[in-house]
């Protein structure tokens, strides 16, 4: 017997058993017979765990798009003396997830990447990710500063603002980014007030 059939059989027999209460049997008969159980992590509701599992199984970015997001992300947040780059912190995968989690971003993101490739193809004959580093920077300089950008680059500015936001959120909410930022909470402690040296620095005190 195939798994599906055996599940059906179980459903039928339980239906017969529950026949004592016609309401319950009617309710059971509308249950789908072959739902795969999803493991529910602590703190999640069942529908959330199922939704996350589905989103993780789906793919949004094409390999080329993902490459572009990765290159652009590392231009926005590069490695420096203190910490690694956006891609080293897993930011592209986070952005991929958000596109599926909140589909309203899909068109501005996909369209923005195409806009970028189109501009690069016209100017350099290559898509953004395939351009030389200097060429990539030339374009980025024209869309990264809203106050200085030329009017014909306005869509690129809007795209870059969105991208800067996603890359920053992705990086600074990662383990690497939180450490870089110096957030030291999320741990049981006793709050005793602002440290004395900080109070002094700001010329404030607790005695009015």
């Amino acid at each position: 017997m195939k798994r599906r059939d055996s599940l059906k059989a179980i459903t039928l027999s339980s239906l017969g058993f529950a026949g004592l209460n016609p309401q319950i049997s009617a309710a059971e008969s509308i249950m789908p017979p072959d739902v795969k159980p999803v493991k529910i992590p602590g703190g999640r509701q069942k529908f959330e765990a199922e939704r996350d599992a589905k989103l993780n199984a789906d793919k949004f970015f094409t390999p080329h798009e993902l490459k572009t997001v990765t290159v652009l992300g590392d231009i926005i947040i590069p490695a420096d003396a203190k910490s690694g780059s956006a891609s080293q912190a897993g930011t592209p995968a986070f952005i991929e997830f958000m596109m599926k989690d909140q589909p309203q971003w899909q068109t501005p993101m996909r369209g923005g990447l195409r806009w970028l490739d189109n501009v690069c193809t016209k100017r350099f004959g290559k898509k953004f990710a395939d351009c030389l580093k200097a060429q990539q920077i030339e374009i980025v300089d024209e869309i990264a500063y809203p106050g200085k950008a030329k009017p014909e680059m306005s869509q690129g500015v809007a795209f870059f603002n969105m991208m800067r936001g996603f890359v920053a959120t992705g990086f600074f909410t990662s383990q690497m980014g939180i450490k870089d930022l110096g957030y030291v909470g999320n741990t049981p402690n006793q709050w005793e007030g602002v440290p004395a040296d900080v109070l002094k620095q700001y010329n404030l005190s607790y005695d009015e």
Partner: protein
Amino acid sequence: MDVPQIKKAAKVYDVVIVGSGAGGGMAAYQLSKAGATVCLLEAGGYFDPADPKYINQLKWAYESPRRGAGTTRAFGDFDAAWGGWEIEGEPYSAVKGTEFHWFRSRMLGGRTNHWGRISLRMGPDDFKRKSLTGIGEDWPLSYEDYAPYYDKVDDLIGVFGSKEGLRDAPDGRFLPPPKPRLHELMIKKAGKSIGVPVIPSRLSILTKPIHDRGGCFYCAQCGRACQAYADFSSSSVLCIPAVKTGRVTLINGAMAREVITDPKTGLATGVSYVDVPTMTEQSVMGKVVVLAASTCETARLLLNSKSARFQNGLANSSGVVGKYLNDSTGASRGAFIPALMDRKRYNEDGVGGAHVYSPWWLDNKKLDFPRGYHIEYGGGMGMPMYGFGFGMEGRNSIVPGRDGKPKAAGGYGADLKDDFRRFYGANIGMAGRGEPVPLESNYCEIDPNTVDKYGIPTLRFNYKWGEAEIKQAKHMQDTFEEIIHAMGGIALGKKPGPETNYGLEAPGKIIHEIGTARMGNDPKTSVLNKYSQAHDVKNLFVVDAAAFPSQGDKNVTWTILANSWRTSDYIIDQVKQKNI
């Protein structure tokens, strides 16, 4: 109603309570402690903040694939509330040109699992609005009636604060308040310079352990529910202890359909409900029925409980059920404080919420709007979550770079990366929460065309803000800028103007709705008497905020708890006297 397939349970409970939030939890606790057998119906699932199955507390942003974004939970991925303004299969509607957003939390403890723990008493004048101002409605009770219950709630549940001696913000029996954070000290200093009082918050968080609950360990995450039971949730503090008496039968997944009445006596005899896991129709019987399903859900239940005897819905001979619906006003503004750039890092998580707030400080007689508001504050070096870093292009040109030279907004690269570090913890936010004027024209009713997935007719809202609330929001915006400027801060974004009603949030967004079954002395203009007992049905009580004629600018949870306790005492007394 009498539908043949409903299987009537044999047991008759002393009390059937619908809803396990602040009102229902307190009634279940008090009535079961007094010896009554109680059936507690909760539409959502079981929830215990201490059970690892449910814990989100102390998780890191990166433990959420969406880094805490509010995709399935309006207040973020780790927020404790199950449900939200939209629930699959449970629609509601609004009459064209009006709006109301209805937040529902389907779980043991309801919305108390994630709330802000702001635990304010109403002041003496809050109960007498009509007498004092000529508009609105008086309560049939005074501050003196509630004071002993507020005291008892303080002792049982715990609230921190400071004795200030303010008439409009009565003191309670407080635990010690936590010291202000750095930005809160700056707000306090700025407030002093312009005459806006800034005092310790009053939050139901245990800065000292009481009863068998743990003390606060300062993670700032009350909204995720506390595994130490160090804050007030109805689940941990009331419902679970009530169940432990052995006299409470808790039924989860019980979506109430109607209050059942005896056609001869007109008394309530029980509650019919949909058992959610099996989608079957069930009912429970009780000698007393207590509704605490939340302001709008309670109104819905009453309006849906129609019978030959109660053709307008139950307890609705006045026609007032559903009317006078009112939510707090809300408006907010953010600011950047240059003095807070390049801050020294230390753990300033503190309790969940602001350590200070501003109680209403002005006299409305001298203003062009009739009711007051308080201000809540945000800020600090919190855990970066989804949304962190968005909008930097609106900020990083405000001040010069490390080299002292002006900067172009936006940017990329190592310099931008450094800006995020420099600006971290330099933002503050403030939000006004004001008292609205309850209006008969703001109401919910049964939608004639729609049912939810349980086949229960749904609510249709009709709600518009009036001039009083819009002018109040305008005043909030002016005050916010005054405080920001006094701090040497820079207000972010454009100042909200008349085109957005000065940033006044849509009705329902503040989740402080009350008033749909208000109490009063006159059965023609009110649903309940001063004991929250239905004028029309003497064994039917309402212990959520539906009972309240007005709400002050005092987030109503503490008054729900006090009123539910008072009503429970009355029920016990009336049963002893054999009146019900």
